[in-house]
């Protein structure tokens, strides 16, 4: 594909993810409510919330610095950049000429850096605790993301996400044990990155998991939440691009694009569905026990690497 059409697809992906991310999170909320035998909010509740919050007066903590004000924008921008690089509609990475999987991992880090700094800068106890959690969990899963993506890159002989995605889609990278194990441990990463259990207490969401958001209100809160929804969909799309990249278009066409979009929506909905089931079926655990869960995932990741070494 030409650079022009790649840029077009990249921007299209950004717009789509920005528009659809609240819908998927709303879908997850509805599912959870159904599983709790509650009536639950409407599917579009997240949109109503965002619209309403935008119009509300914003209250800033007296000691919130510059960081506190710019963070909502930073999180949205970095999430958008990630979805412009990840191949969602096309087989190629639309902005693959800007960066590779290493950049994607560190862009997620950029968002996390500023989110937690904003939490800390608000001076609020819960903000600081949320910041601490965010970075602690990231230190536990970051190595795992890199391990799995590194193995997949070695199989594709390139760190470009388009090359990995195309390799899996065309069968150049066959579904051997390595890929399956990588998929399992990466699914764990997506689960954690999307802010799901077992490290989140759904009854204490306001205080802990969204701890860094505590002092946000009005427009700032709307942007922060929107950015968080986008980040959820971004990691889900990363999973799809690397492990189930079928149905993407190879040349730019309206029909191919619509088909690719429909297939992507189905795959993403399926993943949100699975995550919701898992989330509601699992017991909650103390946050400090998180390493014992991540160690299991790291073990699976290492097994994936070992299988890569012996080429199974």
């Amino acid at each position: 594909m030409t650079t022009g059409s790649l840029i077009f697809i990249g921007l299209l992906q950004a717009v789509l993810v920005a528009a659809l991310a609240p819908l998927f999170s709303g879908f997850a909320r509805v599912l959870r409510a159904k599983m709790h035998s509650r009536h639950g909010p409407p599917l579009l509740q997240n949109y109503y919330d965002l619209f309403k919050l935008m119009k509300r007066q914003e209250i800033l903590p007296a000691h919130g610095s510059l960081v506190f004000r710019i963070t909502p924008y930073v999180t949205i921008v970095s999430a958008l950049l990630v979805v412009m690089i990840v191949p969602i509609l096309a087989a190629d990475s639309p902005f693959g000429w800007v960066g590779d999987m290493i950049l994607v991992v560190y862009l997620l880090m950029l968002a996390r850096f500023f989110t937690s700094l904003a939490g800390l800068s608000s001076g609020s106890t819960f903000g600081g605790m949320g910041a601490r959690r965010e970075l602690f969990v990231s230190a536990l899963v970051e190595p795992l993301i890199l391990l799995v993506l590194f193995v997949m890159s070695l199989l594709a002989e390139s760190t470009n996400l388009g090359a990995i995605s195309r390799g899996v889609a065309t069968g150049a990278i066959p579904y051997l044990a390595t890929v399956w194990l990588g998929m399992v441990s990466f699914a764990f990463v997506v689960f954690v990155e999307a802010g799901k259990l077992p490290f989140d207490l759904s009854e204490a969401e306001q205080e802990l998991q969204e701890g860094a958001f505590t002092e946000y209100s009005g427009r700032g809160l709307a942007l922060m939440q929107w950015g968080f929804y986008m980040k959820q969909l971004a990691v889900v799309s990363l999973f799809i691009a690397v492990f189930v990249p079928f149905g993407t278009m190879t040349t730019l066409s309206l029909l191919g694009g619509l088909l690719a979009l429909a297939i992507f929506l189905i795959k993403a909905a399926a993943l949100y569905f699975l995550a919701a089931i898992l989330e509601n079926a699992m017991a909650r655990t103390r946050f400090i026990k998180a390493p014992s869960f991540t160690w299991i995932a790291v073990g699976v990741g290492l097994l994936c690497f070992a299988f890569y070494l012996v080429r199974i």
Partner: protein
Amino acid sequence: MDAIQLLISSALTFAATGLLSLLLRGLERPARVVSGLGGAAASVLAFLSALAAFVGDSASLELTGFSAFGRFVLAMDGLSAFMVGAISLLAFAASIYSIGYVHEYRGRGCGELGFFNNIFIAAMLMVVTVANAFYFLIFWELMTLASYFLVIFEQEKKESVSAGYLYFLIAHIGTALIMLSFFILYQQTGSFDFDSFRNAGLPLGIQSLIFLLAFFGFGAKAGIVPLHIWLPRAHPAAPSHVSALLSGVMIKTAIYGLIRLCVDILGAPLWWWGFVVLCFGGLSALLGIVYALDERDLKRLLAYSSVENVGIILMGVGVGMMGMSLQLPTLAVIGFLAALYHLLNHAMFKGLLFMGAGAVVYSAHTRNMNEMGGLARAMPWTSFVFLVGAVAISAIPPLNGFVSEWFVFQSLFIASSTELGVLRVFAPLFAVLLGLVGAMAAMTFVKAYGTTFTGQPRSVHARDAVEVPGSMLAGMGALAIAVTLLGLGAPWVTPFIGGVAAQVANVPTETLASGIQIFPGNEAQGVLSTPIIFLLHAGLLTFPLVAVFALGGHRAGQRVDADPWACGYGYQPQMGISATNFAQPMLAAFRPLYLLRTLAQKPLDGIASFAKRFGASLPAAEPVVERTVSQPIFAFVRTVGGWVQRMQMGDLRMYCLYIFIALAVLLIVIFK
């Protein structure tokens, strides 16, 4: 003037302004202006010299008539010019910064501080350009001594003096090992010239011995784990602009020495050399950042983070060395490129961060982050540049730390698909380790910035802080600009450093950049374009802004409220997260690594207490041997002491001269 003449004039300017500052020590303000502005001017000369060497061919100059057994040769090849460039950039910023900062030391010897500081920089410039082992050691020693006096500058603090002692001890153990490796080479070649070392053609066994001696010798200076223990004590003890130089460039002269001796001269013939370097690099990176995370002293946190960054640099060096021994030119070039790029980047952002910490100490008079908080209000500029440094050191795109770590990842990626089994297994694991280190670095610097500059002030000092003088801001601002340019300008900087890396590895240059993209020799493997990332960040910002506007958010208005929410109770600053409890979950999760430090402390304490007990038991044995052995010896010693007393004038410069003479005499005795 050519590169060498510029370099010599720069070194002489440093020395002259240093001496002038010493002469003016009674008048503090002129002393600090002379040493600061003079240092800045000399740094400009040194930078021009590096540029001249890059533009022209390698230059060298021999000065005769100094000593009978060593030719005084200065040579500027790509590597030397690169190091001179890195030193001069940081020295420039540090000199400007020092004009304001040294005011903090009024009445405590500003003149002496300027003297030792400028001599220290001059010695570093000489160390990286001299091409003779004998003079290398002389300047190495001069650098060590000058920096020792800077470390113990705050003599009234017991802590500084003991840190200085530890530094002195370990630095000299290192120097002894380096000397040994040079002497072996001298024994085999009969000359101290690096050029003659190059053509020595030694058996591999002896080469390996030289490598090990040099690696641990230079490693002691670079602060690799487990020889790092002096670094987190000595670097914070010095005045902050000196800490910046110590962490930013002095420890890099050890990396330079390692590359010069083991790569340039010996040619890294065996793969396990590189592997040893890689492993120690990985270990230093991990333990450095783990311990940095636990620190609540801002400057010690930065010093531990230097251990981490030296580790990352050594990982690049190790991969490059393995590339050379495996005859894989791309691997060698990318490995050394990653190492040198990170070396330069670390000099810039660690310099910036240490100066930022210095600014905080200048205003808030404490290094304890638990007593800070909310400084961004009083010190907006310092806070901003510190944030730039914190983002860069956490390898956040698109600033410079990310670019060099990206190259480390890419070098490990190439290494993962070589024929060598060890690399196939370990290179991906080191990449994962680097990812862990990156995440922990982000946590460390969120903590450092967050608890120092944001939140509410947690002490009176923090509440009364004010912005620092303009010269300090100018020094830090210059480095913040350098950090940004080295990141966004990667497509233009990379070919330069890549050229140096190729020259070091003695292979043809690789294509590393085209247009606005950089790539590790092969475009299909992965590309990066930091300028476009920056433009996209800026461009995508319109997205949320338009959304806010379209949904009427711009009309909503803002209100600043006094206190954060505290469940309905009255808010107190202590409710915010402090530096100590921020790292707490990490301490729980990585307990074994912290336990390691506690366990290592025991044998060290054991040695110390043994030495103490040994000393204490001596008086008990004294009466027995006193009459027979001791008294004649004491009498003799007293006589000798009488002579020595005449030499002891209490002037530090004379001591430097003595050490120089002693070294020279020793060498003449041995080799004549």
